[in-house]
């Protein structure tokens, strides 16, 4: 990890990895819910400024792994994480790590759009405000505008920033949640099935957005849709029953999987 240099932002869609340094390095990640072991030691390196898709049948541990990356599992009672996850070389489960700072660097978008029951403006401004990112009202306005613009929502909402975020359509709400996540300038964005509650048109919109965001952010997306994984990601990890079965370039996983289980899953024989 000591060789990380600033990489040029020049990835083309679907480009093979290799020109991206790993941003997140996990080694032997095990997760226990009480006595039950949900993840059996996952080694997974997530590359910077790429989209990594986590696929697998329900209950395979892909969401559990995702939630380890910003320590969202901390709030789950009886949940215990073993192994090491390093982001830029820092072990995020180190005792000295401030979870709040971690979550500002590793943003998250959830399955169901969950805007705060506040105005659109307040939704986006909340993160910068609690982290003291903006100096004064003007700067905050700028952050809100640029975040909404990056989330592709600015044009639709610029005249009704004071209206409640919950009044938007499902797809707009999800883009608002993405704007809220990027407003605190994270480096990594975790997406937990961000399109599963959306219609195909809104889904296409979000997928486009993910592709655009890849320029600046490291994105990890959990999805149930293999087409989606194939469309948006550069790397794909296949989980099954708490194990990481196969991890590689998306094109390789979908065209030439090495493992039989992966083959079976992507061809729809189980899951």
């Amino acid at each position: 990890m000591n060789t990380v240099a600033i990489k040029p932002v020049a990835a083309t869609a679907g480009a093979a990895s290799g020109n991206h340094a790993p941003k997140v390095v996990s080694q032997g990640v095990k997760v226990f819910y009480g006595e039950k072991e949900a993840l059996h030691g996952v080694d997974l390196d997530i590359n910077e400024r790429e989209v990594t898709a986590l696929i697998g049948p329900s209950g395979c541990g892909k969401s559990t792994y995702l939630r380890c990356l910003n320590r969202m599992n901390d709030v789950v009672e009886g949940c215990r994480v073993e192994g090491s996850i390093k982001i830029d070389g820092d072990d995020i489960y180190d005792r000295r790590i401030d979870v709040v700072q971690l979550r500002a660097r590793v943003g998250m978008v959830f399955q169901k759009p969950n805007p705060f029951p506040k105005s659109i403006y307040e939704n986006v401004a909340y993160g910068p405000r609690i982290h003291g990112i903006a100096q004064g009202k003007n700067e905050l306005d700028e952050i809100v505008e640029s975040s909404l613009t990056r989330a592709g929502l600015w044009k639709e909402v610029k005249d009704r920033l004071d209206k409640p975020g919950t009044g938007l359509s499902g797809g707009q709400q999800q883009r608002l949640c993405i704007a809220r996540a990027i407003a605190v300038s994270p480096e990594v964005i975790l997406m937990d099935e961000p399109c599963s509650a959306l219609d195909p048109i809104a889904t296409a919109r979000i997928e486009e957005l993910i592709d655009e965001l890849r320029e600046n952010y490291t994105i990890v997306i959990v999805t149930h849709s293999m087409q989606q994984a194939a469309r948006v990601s550069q790397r794909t990890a296949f989980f099954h029953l708490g194990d990481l079965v196969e991890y590689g370039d998306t094109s390789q996983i979908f065209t030439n999987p090495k493992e039989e289980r992966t083959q079976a899953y992507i061809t729809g024989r189980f899951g």
Partner: protein
Amino acid sequence: MTDSALPMTAAMANRAPRKLVLNEKRVRSRYAAERRFRAYGIAAIAFGLFFLAWLFVTLVVQGYGALQQSKMRLDVNLDAATLAPGGKVDDTTLRAADYTALLRTALRDTLGVGSDRAQRREAYALLSNGADNELRRIVMADPTLIGKTVPVWVSASADVDTLIKGQIARDLPENQRRLKDRQIAWVDKLVADNRLKKRFNGALFVNGASSDPEQAGMGVAIIGSMYMMLVVLLTALPVGVAAAVYLEEFAARNRWTDLIEVNINNLAAVPSIVFGLLGLAIFLNFFGMPRSAPVVGGLVLSLMTLPVVIIATRASIKAVPPSIREAALGVGASKMQVITHHVLPLALPGILTGTIIGMARALGETAPLLLIGMVAFVVAYPATPFDPATALPVQIYMWAGAPERSFVERTSAAILILLAFLIVMNAAAVLLRRRFERRW
């Protein structure tokens, strides 16, 4: 579904097709059962409404009269020699002056009573014992009246009042009546002269305790109850919310928190008289707080309201969807920020509704107040929550036990006023819920 499906039994296969026209006996009896079932519900509601209507009609019919009080117009000569001997007009002399004498003189002149002492005594009985206070208030408010003869309205005695309101029969034998024939004749004459009539009874709302019904009011009780509600709000709400937030957000689920939870629910079911004894033992005997003080009453009622607030707050906090917490945690809010920025604001309407309902219950609570000395004859307004006062329900309790006929209507009026307070509080709770309730 052919042979591979589950085999049909003979009965199922041979069954005639169902008719949709409703003439089967089974169908008809099912309909009748449904109608009966609904009728039971309607009957139950009617039962409840009947008694509620009875309660309200009785209270209004009985209590309405208390809003008016018979008053007498007397032309009082505010004699300077009696009020301010030596020409000294200051508060001390005016407060100590003999107003009764002035009123009695005016009354004698009006009725044309001579020097017969029995007659005089009967005439004086028409005046309220507190009439001199009423005149004193008038004079002290405007000392320039001294030396003039002014018409003033002062309260008639409770006996006159009940006669005017027709609450006592005139045709009883004289020796069974409180008012003698001559007094009744005077009353009739005063009424005919337009000197005696029913006027709005402001004293009912502002005066303190009095053994003369016509002078008795609920002022002290209203202020006492308000002080107590203030104390309840200031103690039960913060303590209850803090306890609920801790239990809901921070405490681990284990045997201890289960035990605490069970005991909070038990606390809500403890009879109120027990809280009164607790208050007596702890606040009065141990901490040596003053008797009859609204602050003690408020603390005792807070103990009763606390479980209600805790339970309501926990329910409202639980109702905040986890997705909102996750969203806040996801952008890096600390646990405290999640609670103060998101959970509590969203739970607030529920918390306030629960608090108001708990306070409404506390407002009507009597038993614990009996034990800490709130059953008190308090004439003066309490300046602070530490001064003696009484409370609305206690005032009702005391008036209900008073023997005078005039206290009957005052009891009903006091109940109506207490109910009005309760209805306003409950309506506020309902409005809050309607206005701010959020569905997810």
